[in-house]
C-alpha cells in the first residue's frame, strides 16, 4: 500500500506542478484564437462580393491559415536547446551515450510538438467552425492531413537541427532561425496561400522546401486530392532526407572540430 501511495503522490505533484504552466499555455492558445479572428475579419472583407479568389473560398482560406499556424505554433525549440548544449559544452556528455545525438533530438522534439499540436488542432477546429462553418471534406482529408502535418513538423525539426548545429561555428544562431522563419512565413505560404502569389513566383515557391512546412499540408487539408497528397508527401520525404543528410554531414564535421579542439 505504501508503495502505491508513493506513486500517487508523485503523480499528483507532477500534475500540480503543471498547473503553474496553465496560464502561459492558455495565453498562447488565446493568441491563436485572436489571430484567427483577425484573419477572419480581414478575409471576410476581402471576399465581400466574390466567392472564390485564386480558386479558394473564404472558408478554405481561413481553415488553411489555421493549419499553417498549427504547424508553426507547435514547433519545438530544438535549435535553442542545441545552441545551449554546444555553448555549455554539455554536448560532450551526450556524445558519450549509446545513441545518435541527432536521432535523440529529433525524437524528443517530435514528442514535444505532437503534444502541442493536438489541442491547437482542436481549438482551430472549433474556432474556424464557429466563424465559417464546417470545411467541406474535412473528415475525409483529415487522415492524410495529419500525416502531412507531422511531416511539416518533422521538416521544421530538421531545420532546427541544422541551425542549432551551426552554433559550433558561430556564437549566436538566432538570426539564422529568423531568416528561416520569415522564409517559411512568406515563401512557405504560412500567412497567405501560395496560390495568391503572382504566377511567376508560384511555381518556384511551391517547389521550394519552405512550402512543404506550411503550404502543402494545409492546402491538402482544404483542397484534397490524391495528387496533392502525393506531391506533398514525396516532397516532404525528399526534403527531410536531404536535410537529415545535411545535418549528419554538419554533425560529422563538428565532431572533427571537437576532437581537434578537445571539446
Amino acid at each position, binding site marked *: 500500500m505504501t508503495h502505491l501511495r508513493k506513486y500517487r503522490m508523485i503523480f499528483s505533484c507532477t500534475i*500540480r506542478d503543471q*498547473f503553474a504552466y*496553465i496560464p502561459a499555455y492558455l495565453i498562447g492558445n488565446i493568441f491563436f484564437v485572436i489571430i484567427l479572428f483577425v484573419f477572419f475579419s480581414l478575409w471576410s472583407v476581402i471576399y465581400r462580393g466574390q466567392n472564390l479568389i485564386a480558386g479558394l473560398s473564404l472558408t478554405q482560406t481561413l481553415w488553411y491559415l489555421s493549419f499553417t499556424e498549427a504547424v508553426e505554433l507547435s514547433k519545438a525549440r530544438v535549435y535553442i536547446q542545441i545552441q545551449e548544449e554546444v555553448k555549455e559544452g554539455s554536448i560532450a556528455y551526450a556524445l558519450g551515450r549509446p545513441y545518435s545525438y541527432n536521432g535523440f533530438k529529433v525524437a524528443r522534439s517530435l514528442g514535444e510538438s505532437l503534444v502541442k499540436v493536438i489541442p491547437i488542432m482542436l481549438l482551430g477546429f472549433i474556432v474556424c467552425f464557429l466563424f465559417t462553418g464546417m470545411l467541406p471534406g474535412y473528415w475525409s482529408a483529415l487522415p492524410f492531413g495529419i500525416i502531412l502535418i507531422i511531416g511539416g513538423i518533422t521538416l521544421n525539426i530538421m531545420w532546427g537541427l541544422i541551425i542549432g548545429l551551426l552554433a559550433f561555428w558561430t556564437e549566436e544562431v538566432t538570426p539564422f532561425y529568423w531568416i528561416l522563419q520569415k522564409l517559411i512565413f512568406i515563401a512557405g505560404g504560412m500567412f497567405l496561400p501560395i496560390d495568391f502569389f503572382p504566377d511567376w513566383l508560384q511555381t518556384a515557391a511551391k517547389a521550394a522546401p519552405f512550402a512543404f512546412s506550411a503550404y502543402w499540408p494545409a492546402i491538402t487539408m482544404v483542397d484534397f486530392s490524391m495528387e496533392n497528397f502525393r506531391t506533398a508527401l514525396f516532397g516532404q520525404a525528399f526534403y527531410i532526407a536531404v536535410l537529415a543528410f545535411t545535418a549528419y554531414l554538419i554533425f560529422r564535421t563538428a565532431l572533427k572540430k571537437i576532437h581537434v579542439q578537445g571539446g
Partner: protein
Amino acid sequence: MVLEVDGLSKTFKSRVKGSGFKGSLKNMFSPEYRSIEAVNDISFSVEEGEITAFIGPNGAGKSTTIKLITGILYPDEGRVSVLNMDPHKDRKKLAYRIGAVFGQKSQLWYHLPPSDSFDLLGSIYNLSAPEIKKRVAYLTQVFEIGPFLNQAVRKLSLGQRIRCEIAASLIHSPEILFLDEPTIGLDVVVKQRIRELITRINQDSKVTVFLTSHDTCDIEKICRRVIVINKGQMVWDGSVKQMKYSLLNKRIINVRLEEPVALNMKGVELLKEKGCSAKLEVDLTVTSMKKVMSALVTRHNISDISISTMPMDEVISSIYEGGV
C-alpha cells in the same frame, strides 16, 4: 529630533496556498488571504548624529520599518516624521536629504562600472558635473574603491560591491543614512572594515546613521543606541550601555560537584541541572560573585568550575523572548 515615529503599524496580506490537489484548484479561482502584522504600534525617535541599531530576528519587521520611514511603503496607521517632513507628502524633497542602502538590493547598474552609476546618480540628485567629480573623488578615497571604480559591477566581490553601494548612497551628502543589513553575507574581515567606514562617515560629516542588522557584533561595535523588535513589536529601546548593564550584568557559572547542587540564594537562578553538574545564572545587580563563590565553596566540594559572561547573542535572544 531628526526622526520621529509614532504608533506605526503595517499589515500585509498574503495569499494562502492550499495544500494538495484540491488546494491548488481552489487557489486558482478563489484565493484566500491571510494578514500578517509586519509592524505593530512602534514609536521611537532618533537624535541628530546618533548611530542607532535596529535589530531583531528574521521577519521581525526591521526592513518594513525602514521602508515605512523612507517613504517606500505606506503605513496603515501612525505617523512618521523625518527631518520634519512626511515621507509621503514630501517624498521628493526628503529624498535629497536621505540616503539608503539595502544590502539585498543594488542601486548600481550590474553591467556597468560603479563610476558610471555614480555619475548618473549624481545627476538624479541634481548635482553639477564638477560637484559630482569632487564628491566621487572624496568617496573614492574614503572607501578605497579606486582600484575597481572602472570595473563592471558584476565582476566585483560582495565586499567591494557593498562599499560601492554605501558610497553611492552618500553621493548627495545626505543627512541621514539608512542601512538595511549592510554586512549580510560578508566575511569577518570585510564586516569589520564596513563597520569602521560607517563609524568614520558618522564622525566626519555628522551623518545620522540608522541601521538594521541581525549581527549582534555590528551593534556592539558601532552603536550607542539600540532598538529591538520582535514579531512587529518593540521590545527594547535604550542605549547599548544600558542594555549591557541590565543584561550583561549576568554571569553564567558551570559547576561540577561531588553531590547534587543545593543552593538557594537571592540573585542566583538554577538554569540546568544534571546529576552533579549544574548551570547557574548570577545577577550581579542583586548579589556579588564573592558571595556566591563562598556559598558554593562552604556547602559543596567543587571538582570543576567555569564562569562566563552572557554572550551578546544570548542577551538579544533573551530580549526577543521577552525575558527583560
